[in-house]
């Protein structure tokens, strides 16, 4: 664990040494020196190169031992074979932090991985904050510290300052994004590339920046991260009330899992990420534009009290476009209060109808004060939480109109106001050059404000104490349901029988109709081969089904071991859900629900959360299904027992969270949700274990 003092030495160093310093300012060993000078780093810069006495006007030292005291950070640019020694030299010289640009470590194979491990060991042993290896370095904009070799600083020699800390797992992408930020004038407080993350990773840097009062927003570019680290950062970000905007690409290699159950396929690694982002109040940017727009907006706009949008537009067409996107993004257009309408009617020309969106027509281009009146009236409407203003091109008058809009904002104290203006500009409100991008940013703002307001989720059910499961990679229906029943998820009445006579006797006692199913560890999808018969109405049906199932099983899987058959009551009425839980490689236990046996598979209509969840979250999962209306009763069908379904989902989530790491998947398919007040029944279930070597 790297200490805070060492991290400070890395991110806010007093003096910096460059090991492998080059007199050529275009080389990797020359650029950091030039950039530090270019940005005006206030501390000492010490080039280290035994072959030189002076570089860039600075005295050059033969080695780290020769340096004066007080060096916090060493930038290491020497070839891979020499990096280990250089890091050891840092330790010997009591240097607390190092940035290693050099590549050729874990990314090139096992030998490199071993070398990287040795770097990590040195760093840990001496509490050295190590950034990299194989990274582009970092920049602390306020402190003018730039131990980096990114050519983004060639294009434009400086970076505007702003309250956004940017951390990237890809150096190249980070440089490109930095260049875009510079071009758009987006300010940054920190720019950090994490490289191979030998010791310090995305989460460590993010936590450090969250503690820094100068950082208001963290923007991240992620390729892969373990769930626990992300959870840690997300929790810290929520605690600090600082938004975390992340662009996540690629499916993590570890996330590809094979399982005999369908749920793994349905869940998919990306869906788990999406669930984690939502549950942890992080914002997921889909592309670079979103990442920049959202972090910029969150850094500068106040948080809205709700999602209701007011639109003022110089173009009716842009107003319609934004209205479309508002609806698609779940941002309702606020109905205007009568007083707002009166204000607008008084201020606007007769042909501009007071409405939301407010189409001012092109009149504000020459009619001074009109824009201010429109924006002011709508922004002050108590029903409006977020203001979107479209100025459009307005090349000449645009500047004046933007100023008017700003004046209008004064009346809208505390409400975010986003402005789209296509011309070049230098105004101080978040400005967009595309109305749809602006609307998306508004949605991100609303989503984050909601995440902050959201009450803590209700507690998940207590972890159940469950009996041991039978051995085997696949635990079939009968044993699985008994186990789940012990965890509080009830199944239908049923019994395992060895003969048709036993089945008939049980059915006669309990009453028809019944279902009959093969019990075999070798036939996971019994319906597909005709080894499940439902709705058997009498003994002759039952006996015929017995023979048919035996024949079908033999035909499909000749070597199948048959443990008997399960005869069970038919549960009438209700709606069928699939409820399942699995263990994600990156995020651990996950719970998922979907509607209907066939529907869930064909339409992939599912909701997914990291487990465990409480019953309120489970209810929210059910409500988010596209087919949720079916659960509430359609076409005269009665409403289902939603609380019982939510309870079962919550309980299953607690079961997987408490189960041993060998339990891979628990699938209840179907879970019959009976009419309100009558509970649920797990009609079928399957549990799979992961292979012993993986657990």
């Amino acid at each position, binding site marked *: 664990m790297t200490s805070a003092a060492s991290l400070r030495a890395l991110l806010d160093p007093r003096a910096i040494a460059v090991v492998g310093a080059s007199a050529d300012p275009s080389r990797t060993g020359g650029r950091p020196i030039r950039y530090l000078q270019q940005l005006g780093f206030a501390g000492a810069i010490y080039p280290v190169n035994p072959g030189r006495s002076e570089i860039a006007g600075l005295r050059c030292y033969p080695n780290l031992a020769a340096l004066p005291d007080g060096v916090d950070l060493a930038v290491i640019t020497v070839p891979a074979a020499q990096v280990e020694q250089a890091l050891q030299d840092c330790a010997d010289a009591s240097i607390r932090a190092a940035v290693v640009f050099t590549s050729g470590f874990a990314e090139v194979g096992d030998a490199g991985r071993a070398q990287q491990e040795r770097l990590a060991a040195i760093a840990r042993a001496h509490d050295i904050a190590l950034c990299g290896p194989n990274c582009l370095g970092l920049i602390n904009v306020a402190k003018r510290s730039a131990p980096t070799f990114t050519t983004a600083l060639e294009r434009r020699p400086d970076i505007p300052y702003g309250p956004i800390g940017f951390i990237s797992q890809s150096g190249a992408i980070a440089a490109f994004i930095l260049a875009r930020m510079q071009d758009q004038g987006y300010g940054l407080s920190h720019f950090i590339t994490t490289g191979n993350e030998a010791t310090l990773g995305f989460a460590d840097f993010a936590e450090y920046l969250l503690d820094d009062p100068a950082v208001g927003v963290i923007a991240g570019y992620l390729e892969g991260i373990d769930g626990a680290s992300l959870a840690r950062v997300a929790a810290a970000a929520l605690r600090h009330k600082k938004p975390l905007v992340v662009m996540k690409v690629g499916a993590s290699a570890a996330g590809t899992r094979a399982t005999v159950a369908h749920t793994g396929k349905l869940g998919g690694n990306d869906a788990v990420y999406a669930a984690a982002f939502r549950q942890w109040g992080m914002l997921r940017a889909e592309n670079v534009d979103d990442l920049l727009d959202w972090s910029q907006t969150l850094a500068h706009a106040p948080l809205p009290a709700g999602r209701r949008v007011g639109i003022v537009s110089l173009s009716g*067409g842009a107003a319609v476009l934004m*209205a479309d996107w508002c609806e698609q993004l779940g941002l309702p257009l606020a109905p205007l209060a009568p007083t707002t309408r009166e204000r607008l009617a008084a201020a606007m020309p007769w*042909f501009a109808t007071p409405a939301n969106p407010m189409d001012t027509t092109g009149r504000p281009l020459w009619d001074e004060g009109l824009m201010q009146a429109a924006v002011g009236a709508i922004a002050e409407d108590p029903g409006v939480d977020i203001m979107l203003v479209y100025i459009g*091109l307005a090349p000449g008058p645009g500047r004046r109109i933007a100023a008017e809009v700003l004046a209008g904002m004064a009346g809208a104290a505390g409400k975010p106001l986003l402005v789209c203006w296509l011309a070049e500009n230098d105004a101080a409100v978040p400005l967009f050059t595309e109305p749809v991008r602006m609307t998306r940013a508004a949605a991100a703002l609303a989503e984050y404000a909601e995440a902050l307001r959201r009450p803590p989720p209700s507690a998940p059910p207590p972890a159940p104490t469950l009996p041991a499961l039978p051995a085997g990679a696949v635990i079939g229906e009968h044993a699985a349901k008994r186990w789940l029943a012990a965890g509080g998820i009830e199944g239908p009445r049923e019994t395992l029988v060895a003969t048709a006579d036993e089945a008939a006797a049980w059915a006669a006692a309990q009453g028809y109709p019944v279902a009959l199913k093969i019990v075999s560890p070798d036939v996971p999808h019994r319906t597909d081969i005709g080894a499940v018969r439902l709705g058997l109405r009498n003994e002759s049906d039952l006996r015929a089904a017995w023979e048919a199932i035996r024949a079908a099983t033999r035909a499909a899987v000749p070597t199948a071991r048959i443990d008997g058959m399960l005869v069970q009551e038919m549960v009438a009425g209700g709606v069928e859900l699939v409820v399942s839980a699995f263990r994600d490689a990156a995020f651990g236990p996950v719970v998922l629900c979907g509607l209907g046996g066939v529907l869930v598979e064909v339409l992939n209509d599912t909701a997914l959360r990291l487990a465990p969840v409480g019953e309120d979250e489970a209810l929210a999962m059910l409500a988010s299904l596209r087919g949720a209306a*079916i659960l509430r009763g359609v076409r005269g069908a009665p409403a289902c027992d939603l609380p019982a379904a939510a309870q079962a989902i919550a309980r299953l989530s607690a079961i997987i969270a408490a189960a041993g790491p060998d339990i891979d998947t628990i699938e209840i398919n179907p879970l019959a949700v009976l009419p309100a007040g009558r509970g649920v029944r797990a009609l079928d279930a399957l549990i799979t274990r992961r292979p012993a070597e993986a657990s």
Partner: protein
Amino acid sequence: MIAPDKLAALFRPTSVAVVGASDDIGKPGGRCLTFLRRSGFAGPIYPINPRIREIDGLPCYPDLAALPGPADMVVLLVPAAQIPGHLRTAGRAGTRCAVVCSSGFAEAGPEGARLQDDLVRAAAETGMAVLGPNCLGLADLHAGLIASFSTALETTDNFRAGPIAFLSQSGAIGVAVFTVAQNEGIGFGKFLSTGNEAVLNFADFLDHLAGDADVSLVLGYIEGVRDGRGFVAAARRARAAGTSVAMLKVGQSDAGVRAARSHTGAMVGSAQVYEAAFRRAGVLAVADIRSLLDLALVLPARQPVRGPRVGIVSMSGGAGVMMADRATASGLTLATFGEAMRQELEAVLRGFSPVANPLDYGAIYGSLDAVRRCFAAVAADPGVDVVIVFIGLSPHLAGVIEPILEEIQIRYEKPVVVAWLGGPRHGLTGLRDRGVPAFDDPSRAVDAVAQLVRSAVPLPAHDDAPTERAAETRATLAAFAASGRTTLTEREVKALLAPYGVPVVGEALARTPAEAEQAAKNFGGRVAIKAEAPALLHKSDAGAVRLDVAADAAAAAFTAVVQAATAVVGAAGVAGAVVQPMAPAGLEVLAGLRHDPQFGPTITVGLGGVASEALGDVATELAPVDLAAARAMLARLRGARLLGPFRGAAARDTEALAAALVALGRFAIDAGPLLAELDLNPVIVLAAGQGCLAVDGAAVLAAPTETVTEETDP
């Protein structure tokens, strides 16, 4: 109907009069005149303003009558009330076309609507082609014509004329896109703001541009088209002529519909029908303004697009992953590299990075020759349809990489699209000037490639001529309407559809219990018995339907359903009962037709059952459809897998279902606007080879006022 030469004159007039011209550029009349003079218009320009003698060297005339000869085009910037009079004067003098910029017409209330009616009459009397009113005018840079007063055009007087035309139902969006495009070096050759479309509408202009050799891409902003079928025909004509068409359609949500209604009063129509119309017309749909501009960058394509397989060549591994993610999400596929190029790439990359797609050339990017060989190897691979190149920063490549990429694009005859993130601006424009589409964002570059690939998908067939049965079908429907009927019974619906080849369950109309029993015996099995009562809407609820009845119980069932129906609608409303065989078990789907106010007959198919209906899983197409389009409709259903072999159930007879949709589509065209909607629910789809069967149906006739849609030619 406007004569084609008059419509064409809007774009290439021989002379232009500006009514309401001004010597003050701060006023619309001043701007319009200034832009027109700056645009390099070759013919005479006549400013008209009774209070001014001369404007900057041009003699100014007091009115149109005072002109030395007729103006070919008049641009009108005077108050609305004066417009019809000016139109009549101009028309009588031989003016072929008019641009009415003034507002204060239909968009401004009842008085304006009356003025607009008068404007339409004036146009009809004179036969003039009229653009507007309430529009920002048009520009045709190929003809050196700018007839607009938009302040946005002040930003530059050095427009570049490219092969792109932009039609916009919003003036402000139109000029914004036009200007931003010009600033980015994208040549828009023509721009037209359609305004209230009182005389000429969006489809008319699209149709005109379809035949314009200077235009190879038409972009549009639409709130709602007035003439949907005309729009489809015009877009198809453009596609057939090799011109791509892409539209930003707004008003796709309830909120958007409300906003559009107050903006232009346009009938925005159903998003699903527009999707179907765009598909049929080969029109690319875009979702935001930036995407329109991105399309302008990637289309018109200089090279043929053969398919969706992309080869991604990236300077950064991370950007490669990002673009691969995006490509997969937008329906592109990552090409599998062939052996020949594998060897070439191994030789170039020398083990620094693996030969894979996306290909990471970061390790060798110091050698321009190696980079060129990398690009060429990927472009040469026969498995690659489009090459996407990612470059980051690298200002030194500007001026160097452009000819290399252009050469590769030409040599291998496939599109090369570049994403240059953080690159210098002249690098991007340098590539664009050489015909290599270049973007400053990787996601947008990939999205544009996906659109490029879609633009090359062949046009689906479309033949909406009625069949030889049309007259008979229309006569039947007209007779129903004339007898005051508003709905049709299941029996009537089936009788209309059966001749078209829609398989319907057999039936017999029984008037007595004995006839019902005989009919049941004839069918030879269990039957359904339903009261025949046109006015009875919910037969099941009224107890007027009995299912699964044995032949010996048919007489009693007949009596029961007739009594139940009589109790609701009276004896006079009950014609007996329909006896029909019980349908065999199979997958239930629903099929139907709707007459769309803009696009005419459409057909819809969806999976039946409560669950699927609640999920709204339906596919819609403009009628008619051919077999290929019908199959595609079925494949588009989210639940399409239920039609195939699924969970032990045999595959369904999708061919029979597709054929039934084809038949339904032909019927829809024949029925035309007389029929508002028709539903077949359910249609039972049996196992493959066994067909499908419509077992129930209902229809609603058009309300009398809606049936008058045939336009009379003045």
